[in-house]
């Protein structure tokens, strides 16, 4: 399997097996197992791992484009893939020099392991940079118990990457990134996952109890992993998923407008004007994603990754998430208005109900309110506008 194979196979997987089960996955709020299995077989689990470490070596931009194509057919499948890549990238960017992690990454690609994220925690702050749980020594190893508010596809994952305080005495912000591997942890679900949208991600809360060997505690601090990889990768890949949903909505609107035009040649249908505005918004969305992806990749290829920990980058990165999450809701709502009643019907070819329910999650996953308040605080000291 090579990157070329994966990139070539992806459109057919997306419009084939992923699309075929999307409605049922949504209705039953079940894991999109058929699509994920097909993606695993095509090498997707190792897509973000460099080729000299056993993966396919896809760039962030390539991964983002694949997420967008998947999301045009099933937003849940796309989000699961995006979340997996974020975990893989955290290991690749910050721990690949640790021999055991390098071996583990080989197994991720070879055994098609799916990694979930356990970053959320029940607690007073709701801020992933503040932990309640902590590592406790147990002989050579550690144990940890973490009460997570949401663990997407946690029950279907092989391994879970999460963070905890370094010790019981450490401050809330003194965190390490930890990899729990299958067989050495249990995840007891907390509550269900009967949601408005993103139903296939199967993301109830869970109590994670894990035994951790020393190599599974990454050398890099979680602060660095979060700032340099998890936050920017999340914002970029989530945005790509939302872009996919929005793109499909615009495509459906465009099909309907073209059909109207064909019925009465010589007259520009009124809806065509709305479509023109809508296309502009979609282009804007695509451009802001592209700009930040390029900036990120440029900093990552430069010598000093610490630029990623500047307030300027954090502001731009947060703004990406704010803008795309709001644009996605706007675009799908506008498309619904353009298409009209047939988009409102769940059983029509141009139904947009699932798209709308899915994108409504965008402003909520890491609430925009919280991000705005972080930005507001940073703008008190940041000077360049």
């Amino acid at each position, binding site marked *: 399997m090579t990157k070329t194979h994966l990139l070539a196979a992806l459109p057919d997987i997306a419009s084939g097996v992923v699309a075929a089960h999307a409605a049922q996955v949504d209705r039953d709020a079940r894991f999109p197992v058929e699509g994920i299995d097909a993606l695993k077989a095509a090498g997707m689990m190792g897509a973000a791992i460099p080729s000299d470490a056993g993966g396919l070596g896809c760039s962030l931009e390539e991964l983002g484009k694949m997420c967008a194509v998947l999301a045009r057919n099933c937003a849940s499948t796309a989000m699961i893939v995006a979340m997996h890549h974020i975990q893989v990238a955290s290991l690749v960017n910050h721990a690949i020099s640790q021999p055991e992690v390098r071996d583990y990454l080989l197994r991720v690609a070879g055994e098609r392991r799916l990694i979930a994220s356990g970053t959320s925690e029940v607690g007073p702050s709701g*801020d992933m*940079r*503040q932990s309640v749980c902590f590592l406790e020594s147990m002989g050579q190893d550690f144990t940890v118990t973490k009460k997570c508010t949401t663990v997407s596809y946690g029950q279907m994952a092989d391994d879970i990457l999460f963070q905890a305080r370094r010790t019981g005495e*450490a*401050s*809330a*912000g*003194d965190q390490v990134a930890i990899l729990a591997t299958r067989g050495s942890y249990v995840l007891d679900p907390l509550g269900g996952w009967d949601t408005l949208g993103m139903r296939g991600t199967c993301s109830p809360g869970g109590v994670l109890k894990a035994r951790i060997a020393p190599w599974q505690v990454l050398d890099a*601090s979680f*602060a660095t992993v979060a*700032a340099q990889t998890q936050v920017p990768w999340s914002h970029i890949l989530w945005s790509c998923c939302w872009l996919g949903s929005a793109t499909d909505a615009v495509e459906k609107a465009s099909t309907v407008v073209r059909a109207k035009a064909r019925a009465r040649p010589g007259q520009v249908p009124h809806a065509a004007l709305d479509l023109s505005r809508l296309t502009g918004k979609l282009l804007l969305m695509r451009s802001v994603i592209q700009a930040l992806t390029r900036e990120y990749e440029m900093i990552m290829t430069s010598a000093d990754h*610490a*630029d990623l*920990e*500047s*307030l*300027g980058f954090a502001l731009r990165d947060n703004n990406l998430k704010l803008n795309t999450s709001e644009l996605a809701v706007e675009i799908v709502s506008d498309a619904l208005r353009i298409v009209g009643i047939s988009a409102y019907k769940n059983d029509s070819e141009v139904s947009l109900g699932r798209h709308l329910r899915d994108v409504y999650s965008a402003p909520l996953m890491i609430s925009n309110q919280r991000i705005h308040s*972080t930005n507001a*605080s*940073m703008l*008190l*000291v*940041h*000077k*360049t506008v």
Partner: protein
Amino acid sequence: MSANVDDTTLAIRNVLREHARLGDAVATLEEDASLYDAGMTSHASVDVMLALESEFDLEFPDRMLRREVFESVAAIRDAVLELQEA
């Protein structure tokens, strides 16, 4: 010069005591110890930046607004002295 360094260090520690939300820990913290590991949140770090700008009557340029510049008492002192010399 050394008197200025001492005064600056003292003033920085005062600002941290007031705004870093680290409790009593800040008084005993080594100069090179990580303030973030000691518990300073990114939110508190902004308050520290604002208070430092007010205390020393200066403005940190954007290039200095990064984590490592506010990582420790020593790092903050380097930044303040650099701006005062400029």
